[in-house]
């Protein structure tokens, strides 16, 4: 009878636990706290945080419980991440809930989104310099695109074993955009520049909004075909929204589909961050490079806006450059807040949505380009 108790105890989490599980459980609880109590990207941090709890319960290998065991439920659900299924479905929902009017009204702001994506390539170089292989460096670099689904999609294709740390880094920094960006924005702009008021955007017709997803999809995917899964779904979702006659499908895409996929993606990504896999020197390097990537992307967007002002008659508020970091809509909100700290009557949010959204397109194109280079 004693043997039964001993065998039972040796199969419990208390016996199998080591310090790495405890650390990750604490990190998971922190994420849940930040999501619920502080309202930092709760739709992402709460599923990821709870997934971390699930993934770090020590289990006896071979019982089909852990996410890395082939016959486990979590493993089947995790296939949506490793096979690159969830991110395009999330992009479908994003397209179905995004209004591209501000982008259509002033297309030149799209270049700010392009400028912010240079952070991806700077980080790529930094990751190579730190000793990461090219495919790993590309996956780490894409964190600078500040787009969780894009980061997960590319990492699943190029460096699947890094999905956990890269996804956690990407979503963590996306949640921390209101903390990371403002100091950089104040450092690289003058008070006079922050006070610039933007011109009122022109009215955009319904037909333009309907044609845009088709034109954008064809142009971008002819240039970078590897961006097809992400951009295709983004543009398709937007067409469903703008076509009006397919409103039912658009509603499904931006509610039930995106919410379901977000739950599954968050939980499985969180569960993949098991202590023995996650707590490595590599992960520390990824977190450091991820932070650097965000900072460089923000700086590049700001500096490019200042550069554009040398040639434009109607000046752009350079704060909009920070919105090129495609953490939609948080970075646009940060621009609004920083702008209003200088002038409470200066409303920059809608203008900032233009580079914000073009950043999503730009990061998808950058991911496609990196995937095609590394394949």
């Amino acid at each position: 009878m004693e043997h039964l108790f001993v065998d039972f105890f040796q199969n419990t989490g208390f016996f199998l636990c080591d310090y790495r599980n405890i650390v990750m459980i604490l990190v998971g609880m922190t994420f849940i706290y930040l999501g619920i109590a502080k309202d930092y990207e709760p739709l992402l941090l709460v599923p990821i945080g709870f997934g971390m709890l699930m993934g770090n319960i020590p289990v006896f290998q071979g019982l089909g419980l852990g996410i890395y065991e082939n016959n486990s439920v979590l493993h089947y659900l995790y296939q949506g991440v490793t096979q690159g299924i969830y991110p395009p479905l999330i992009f479908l929902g994003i397209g179905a809930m995004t209004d591209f009017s501000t982008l259509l009204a002033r297309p030149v702001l799209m270049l700010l989104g392009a400028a912010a994506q240079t952070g991806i390539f700077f980080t790529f170089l930094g990751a190579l310099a730190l000793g990461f292989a090219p495919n790993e460096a590309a996956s780490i670099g894409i964190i600078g695109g500040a787009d969780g689904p894009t980061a997960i999609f590319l990492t699943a294709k190029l460096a699947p074993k890094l999905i956990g740390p890269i996804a956690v880094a990407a979503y963590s920094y996306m949640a921390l955009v209101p903390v990371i960006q403002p100091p950089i924005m104040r450092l690289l702009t003058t008070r006079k520049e922050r006070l610039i008021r933007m011109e009122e955007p022109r009215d955009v017709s319904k037909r333009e909004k309907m044609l845009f997803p088709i034109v954008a999809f064809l142009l971008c995917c002819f240039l970078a075909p590897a961006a097809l899964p992400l951009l295709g779904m983004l543009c398709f979702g937007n067409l469903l929204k703008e076509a009006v006659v397919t409103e039912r499908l658009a509603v499904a895409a931006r509610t039930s589909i995106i919410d379901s996929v977000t739950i599954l993606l968050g939980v499985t990504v969180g569960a993949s961050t098991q202590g023995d896999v996650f707590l490595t020197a590599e992960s520390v390097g990824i977190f450091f490079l991820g932070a650097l990537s965000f900072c460089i992307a923000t700086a590049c967007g700001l500096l490019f806006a200042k550069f554009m002002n040398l040639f434009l008659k109607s000046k752009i508020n350079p704060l909009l450059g920070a919105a090129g970091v495609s953490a939609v809509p948080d970075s646009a909100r940060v621009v609004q807040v920083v702008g209003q700290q200088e002038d409470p009557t200066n409303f920059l949010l809608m203008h900032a949505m233009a580079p914000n959204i073009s950043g999503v397109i730009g990061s998808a194109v950058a991911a496609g380009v990196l995937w095609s280079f590394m394949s």
Partner: protein
Amino acid sequence: MEANVYGLDAINAYNGWAISVVGVTIVFTGLVMLSLAISQLHKLLSLWENREELSLFKKKAPATDQIPVELTPGQKESARQFKLLAETLNEHFSLPRLLKLAKISGIDHPHATLARLLETDIIVSDTQGYHVLDMAQFKTLAS
């Protein structure tokens, strides 16, 4: 590729610079192209929506055999003289008879003037071998 290569050596070994430059160029090119296309989109739509007002898209009037009709002052004067001569004849008159009268009357260039009156349908055939004067056309062109 050797393991554990760091720094600039690693970047050079993996063509990091080339990948970065080409990658940034492609992203910029794509978004510049898209930005240009979008900036022209509303103009093209406006052109399409107002296409009926554009001469390029206007439906052309069907071609007719009519020649633009206009008489010179001299021709108008000669036409008035021919009218007076025609009124001395029957309503349906012979063209050779009218021409003979025009020569006798001393009207300048009677053949050319008569040909012009026929071209402009001021004098028209009655399909019976004679001709008639179209007063409505005369009043339009020669008065």
